[in-house]
């Protein structure tokens, strides 16, 4: 993505909540890079942020590669927020969990 759109220009249903844990920050960065939107709130819906199903599939493979784990893909499609994803992904990461 060459241009980045401000989140303020989107009609989001959830108020902005900044990522706090290291994992949330990493995931939000991956989302932002894929969507070209900044900043990404942890309760923001991927599809409300302008994402579509093709981008979600692309993003999942980015996440796989960046984190070196394979989380259940259903989360990104059916509960598509950074917070939900961090929970699912975090459970798979080695013990000294991020954050």
């Amino acid at each position, binding site marked *: 993505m060459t241009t980045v759109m401000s989140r303020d220009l989107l009609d989001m249903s959830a108020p902005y909540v900044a990522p706090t844990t290291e994992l949330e920050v990493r995931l939000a960065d991956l989302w932002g890079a894929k969507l070209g939107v900044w900043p990404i709130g942890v309760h923001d819906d991927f599809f409300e942020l302008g994402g579509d199903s093709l981008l979600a599939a692309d993003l999942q493979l980015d996440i796989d590669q960046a984190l070196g784990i394979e989380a259940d893909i259903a989360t990104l*499609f059916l509960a598509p927020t950074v917070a939900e994803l961090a929970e699912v992904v975090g459970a798979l990461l080695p013990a000294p969990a991020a954050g």
Partner: protein
Amino acid sequence: MTAATTDLADPGLLASDRRFAVWDWLRRHDPVRWQPVTGAGDARGFWSVTRYSDVDRILADHAAFTSERGTLLNLLGRPDPAAGHQLAATDPPRHDRMRAPVQRAMGAACARRYAAGVRDGVRRLLAEGTGAGEFDAVPVLSKLPLVVVGPLLGLPAADWPELARLAAMCAAEDDPDYQLPGGVAATLQRGHRELFAYFSTVVRQRSRTPGEDVVSLLLTMDVDGERQRPGAVVANCYSLLLGATVTLPHVPAAALAHLAGTAGYAGWAERPDLLDSGVEEALRWATPGSHFMRVARRPVELSWTGPAGTRTVRVEPGEAVVAWLGAANRDPAVFARPDEFDPARSPNRHLAFGSGRHYCLGSHLARLALKAFFAELFATFVTVTPAGRPVRVRSTFLSGFKRLPLTGQPRRRERT
């Protein structure tokens, strides 16, 4: 409501036998008809064409009509994120370069390779789903597509029932049997996202361990020197699954709904030489995918000559045109006695698989599955009679059945 004012975007129309009278009236009196709509994004309405010649032209003339702005009525006025990535939503010339390798993998040679497996699969589903007594043909037939698509995409048989259910949510979202409590939009969204999640998982696994299947092919093939992005591969898997699971079962269903309890069944069943031409007639008769939509790229004039002389309609750039395949396939200008099921009909240039560059990729496999099905059905039952009222699906796209109770009289009677 008369034919002149019928809402062609009403899912009740395809659920009713009125559709033929409506299409027939339009073909004769208003073959290029504008229908205004509200709440469809930036679209104010859509044109409908019902004559064979116009339907054929609109589907085949990709220079004048794009597939990249939605190809089904439920996408009217909304941007299609799959445009340029999914075969059905990509125009030539890129479409042709994407399609060539997939078409080779799904062509006649592939159909021959699958023939024995499909025959076994069909035999199994008939043996399990039917018996000497009453049976509902719809759940039996719903298993037919995955006999072909399962191996094609390398999907385990255990997943097939769930895939068929999700596909029905995406294609017949208006039907109460498939609709979720949240309504039409929620049903479409859930079905769509679950299938995308499913195929994303498949894609992840195949990128690690490629196989001989079409998912692996989509992942590894080069188009214009580049691999497909994962989202594009997933979108194409989704489209291949839907293209087959949604439509195929309704070809035998429509034929059986018509032939059951009539001499027509035996008239075809006793003539093995008519298997191929009868399958084509069943395709024409059923036309499960009842429309495809295109959007004009430039001004296009469509003319016709009726009792009031020649009229011309100008379609403006950006306007949607819906080509009603179901209407075209009953056009008396092309098919003699169009409302008669004639298994010997020849020629039979039906448009059930579409026309032009987007002609159904799965046509070879569909014909293989249909021939196997009818051959096995005819070997199993001497006659088939109705055992209750058939119920049709509510949809703007799918012309099909959700209940078709039948009784079959087995050909070889079991000892009692």
